[in-house]
């Protein structure tokens, strides 16, 4: 049999409550999902508003894509990306991505802040656009 069973079980319950407290305290208070804005001068002038790949692909794969791009362009000297639709784009965060997405805080940072990721791209790139 268990010695001091009552105290142990009470202690365990309190422990479990404290550990899960963030979930209990935040129930029903989900943050608004971020609204990302495509309202930039360059995008507004596009006749066909499409990124280099589908929005779904970009949403889920852009970190991987940028990672691949940086090795391709810096180390392999491959400067042109052929998208799945066959169009060609210059591989450049500053000269391709940020030309359209020049609204960092409403586009990039909106999601990054929501998902609590802090990519260090900005330490060097995007110095010319407003924060």
């Amino acid at each position, binding site marked *: 049999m268990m010695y001091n069973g009552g105290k142990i079980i009470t202690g365990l319950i309190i422990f479990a409550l404290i550990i899960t407290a963030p979930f209990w305290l935040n129930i029903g208070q989900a943050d608004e999902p971020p609204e990302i804005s495509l309202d930039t001068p360059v995008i507004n002038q596009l006749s066909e508003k499409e990124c280099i790949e589908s929005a779904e692909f970009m949403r889920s794969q852009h970190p991987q894509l940028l990672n691949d791009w940086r090795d391709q362009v810096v180390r392999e*000297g491959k400067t042109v990306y052929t*998208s799945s639709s066959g169009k060609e784009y210059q591989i450049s965060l*500053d*000269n391709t991505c940020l030309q359209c997405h020049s609204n960092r805080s409403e586009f990039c940072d909106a999601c990054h802040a929501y998902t609590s990721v802090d990519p260090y791209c900005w*330490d060097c790139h995007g*110095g010319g*656009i407003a924060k």
Partner: protein
Amino acid sequence: MMNRRDFLKIMASLGIGSALVLEGIDRIGTAADTIPGSKNLQAGHWGMVIDVSKFKTPEDIQRVAAACHKYHNVPEINDPQHEIKWIWQEDFEHTFAELESEYLSEKVKQMQFPVLCNHCENPACVRVCPTQATFKRPDGIVAMDYHRCIGCRYCMAACPYGARSFNFFDPRPYIEEINSAVPTRTKGVVEKCTFCMERLDKGQQPVCAEASGGAIIFGDLSDPDSPVRKVLRDNFFLRRKVELGTGPSVYYIIGGGGSNA
């Protein structure tokens, strides 16, 4: 009960199956293709010839250096311990230390030379870099991958030309006007001249060659008909610290075109 043989068969097929699935997932990120640009300039070995006689005054060198630094977002830090420089000027003694002599003519002593990364054939910086952040491209350019630089500064210790600078702090506040076409650097990385590799990829000449008005000639050293090879054929030239075996790709012409008999 499953016997040992069947168990191993099942586990092996599971292993192969999951490897294939993972491979498939891995490819999603690289669905499309990357290729070199159609306009990019290619060479067997990029090199540079600097005709010092065409830099009449120190201001000419400073003008070229300013054009380079402005284009590449090189910060202007007026503190010799922390300054960043890609191309700058040195006197004869500091450019060609091994040729220094007490009987050197006053004219030569006073000469100023633009100096920069020599994009060596055997770059000491590349040998010592522990992360391969600095590496030699097939076209001879000693390139930097700032993403990989961990700021150990081995390359700075190894470089016999002092061509590398370290960012002790965020350089952005020291850049007057950021050229948004080019990234800046960040605190904790080493930087240097890149022979304008991103401009070559777009079919453009390096900034310094463009700004020098013909005093800096850039081209393919492996091509006997290239402008650099033609100049080197017609002139006596110097390279910095060749005795170290680094094989610098930057050549200096002192005399000025052999017009003096």
